[in-house]
């Protein structure tokens, strides 16, 4: 019995060590790559880079404003740091990641989705694993510990046992890490500027009537973001991206500038779906933002 248990413990230890070494190497490769936005920010730009603006948000932030066009027309320097399928907590984490890596920005343009106008349930978002290569950084670990639920907190415990997060998200992390060994500059569906666009020619097949909604932004996390920006000498601006046939009248009591472009793109030909613009819609929305800033 004693021999059996000792042998079992010995091989368990070897197995845990081995898989942790592989997992650590895998996360290291991702950390040194440009595959996901957190690594892209750190490895694509020089430390202490001063941006005129950055864009935060989820898929609507990722696909609406073309920062390449903005920079060309306004002679500015910006980057799109939006990550699809995320919410305000992840945007805040991205901003902390930005400041903690010694970057600066004059303006932080936060693309706010309707679901984030009011306080909602705060939980780990679908694509938060993209920060896992930086789990040893306190702000990432604190975020995961705070919001992750369950007996085994896969992401937060990855600080000590990297295989936990890596095995759960193996398709999303382990295999991309192998790709990055051969191509460090490979990116996951975003361009040199951090933008992604829905395919040209994809159109929304809808003929709704215009709806006008009166809404209020009360989410306390927006205030937290405002404070974080102020602390780092940035100005927070809220951007409401186009929504098909929707006009929003926004009550603004939080003292943050709002670019309300919910109704800036009208034709269904310029939408990919009800809340995402296609390539043509993106050009119109970007022009509207440029005109606003001018």
């Amino acid at each position: 019995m004693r021999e059996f248990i000792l042998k079992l413990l010995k091989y368990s230890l070897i197995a845990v060590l081995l898989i942790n070494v592989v997992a650590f190497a895998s996360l290291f490769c991702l950390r040194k790559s440009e595959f996901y936005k957190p690594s892209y920010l750190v490895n694509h730009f020089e430390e202490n880079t001063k941006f005129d603006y950055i864009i935060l948000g989820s898929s609507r932030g990722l696909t609406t404003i073309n920062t390449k066009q903005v920079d060309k027309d306004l002679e500015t320097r910006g980057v799109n740091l939006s990550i699809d399928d995320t919410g305000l907590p992840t945007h805040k984490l991205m901003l902390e990641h930005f400041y903690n890596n010694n970057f600066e920005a004059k303006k932080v343009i936060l693309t706010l989705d309707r679901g984030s106008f009011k306080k909602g349930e705060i939980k780990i978002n679908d694509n938060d694993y993209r920060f896992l290569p930086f789990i040893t950084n306190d702000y990432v670990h604190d975020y995961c510990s705070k919001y992750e639920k369950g007996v085994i907190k896969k992401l937060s415990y990855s600080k000590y046992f990297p295989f936990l997060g890596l095995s759960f998200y193996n398709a999303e992390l382990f295999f991309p890490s192998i790709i990055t060994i051969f191509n460090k500059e490979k990116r996951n569906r975003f361009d040199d500027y951090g933008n992604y666009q829905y395919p040209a020619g994809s159109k929304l097949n809808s003929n709704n009537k215009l709806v006008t909604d009166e809404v209020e932004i009360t989410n306390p996390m927006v205030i937290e973001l405002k404070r974080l920006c102020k602390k780092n000498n940035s100005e927070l601006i809220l951007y409401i991206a186009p929504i098909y046939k929707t006009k929003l009248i926004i009550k603004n009591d939080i003292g943050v500038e709002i670019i309300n472009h919910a109704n800036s793109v009208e034709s269904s030909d310029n939408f990919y779906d009800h809340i995402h613009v296609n390539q043509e819609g993106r050009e119109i929305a970007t022009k509207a933002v440029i005109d606003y800033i001018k």
Partner: protein
Amino acid sequence: MIFNSIEFALFLPLVFLLYWFVFKNRIQQNILLLIASYVFYGWWDWRFLLLIFFSSFLDFMLSKKIGESTRKSTRKLLLVSSLFFNLGVLFYFKYCNFFIDSFVNSFTFFGNEITSNHIDIILPVGISFYTFQTLSYTIDVYRGRLSPTKDVISFFAFVSFFPQLVAGPIERATNLLPQFLKERNFQRKLANSGVKLIIWGLFKKIVVADNTGILVDLVYDNFETQNQVALILGAVLFSFQIYCDFSGYSDIAIGTARLFGFNLMTNFSFPYFSRDIAEFWRRWHISLSTWFRDYLYIPLGGSKEFKVRNVFIVFLVSGFWHGANWTFILWGLVHALLFIPLFITGNYLKNKYAKNKELIGVRFFASTIITFTMVTLAWVFFRAENITQAFTYIEHLFVNNLSDNILFSSNKYILILLISIFSILVLLFIEASFYKKNKTEVALNSKGLLFLILMITFLGAFKNHSEFIYFQF
């Protein structure tokens, strides 16, 4: 509680340590196993415990009475009572709604309208497995092959033994019960082989079955728009999903039992290396097919009279045992039609005594591929939601002008497909090496096990894992 869960990863070492270090005599160990098994089963729904308790109590009492009685008619009456209650419970929970639906549909077919209400029942996990296990005890006592036990704790622990409770192997009382009645000493060799089987089973389930399962669901959910390549891949992948899901569970069950000093019967023995359907059934779900042989086929007359009819009945009942759906019955029928020609010509014994290593070659390869193809086509009935879907799927397999292939529609699915293909090749390579040595199970050395652990960790479908398919039966 399922084997591939955090709860079980904590539960198993705890029970193991208590079993060998705290409760050292047989009676204490049996009480511990009984409590552990009830905790394990009650984890799904504590109400299920009432049913398994009732079933165990009934068979314990009836068998005791059968053992005490000398009158044949009384003994028969007691046996019929056990069959009536056990199969009645199984019928109520598993088949009641099926018969109501079939009854209503047949009347509607003849032009009459009948309204019916479904009975709102939750199917208790593993009910078909433990019902057959308790039945085997009562029938064996009736036949005089086993003396009824007076040890109620051992009997209850035998019925609810957690490693094999919910998905088998379906143990015979003649094999498992005596193991509860004798002192058990820790056997290192047995425990070592148990750990090896557990890791092998986890690889089959988490890497092969759960990855292929993602793709199979995609293909079957969209089969009407898919091209032939997608449908062929969907069918072949399901063959490996069902095999690795079910045999993976059996391997973990057998391995876990060995940690407690118990030997369970082999349930799968490399079935996809079978050279004909008869051999397939000697290698697939052995505990069920031998159960039907001993408790259905032989009582029906076996090979002595109406043998073709008997085989036919066994296959139909076997299909129906799997689930309350015509698809399962049709699956059984297809296998009966494939098996009976071999049976009539006497060719079903041809491959029985052949040594595996003698038959590696072109002939072996060809007959294996043909058998696998037949089994794969039959699995379409097993996996389909209904008979229409099954026939449409098979029709589209052969006649199809569509161009969509959902498996190649995104990088994610292509990646999962590559993982599936790679893991299936690893599975076949390892199984072939043990098959050639005439082994009945895979037992890798430490390096092989570490390789499997790496595969489980980095290729396992943890995020999209699914329940064991056979739990629903």
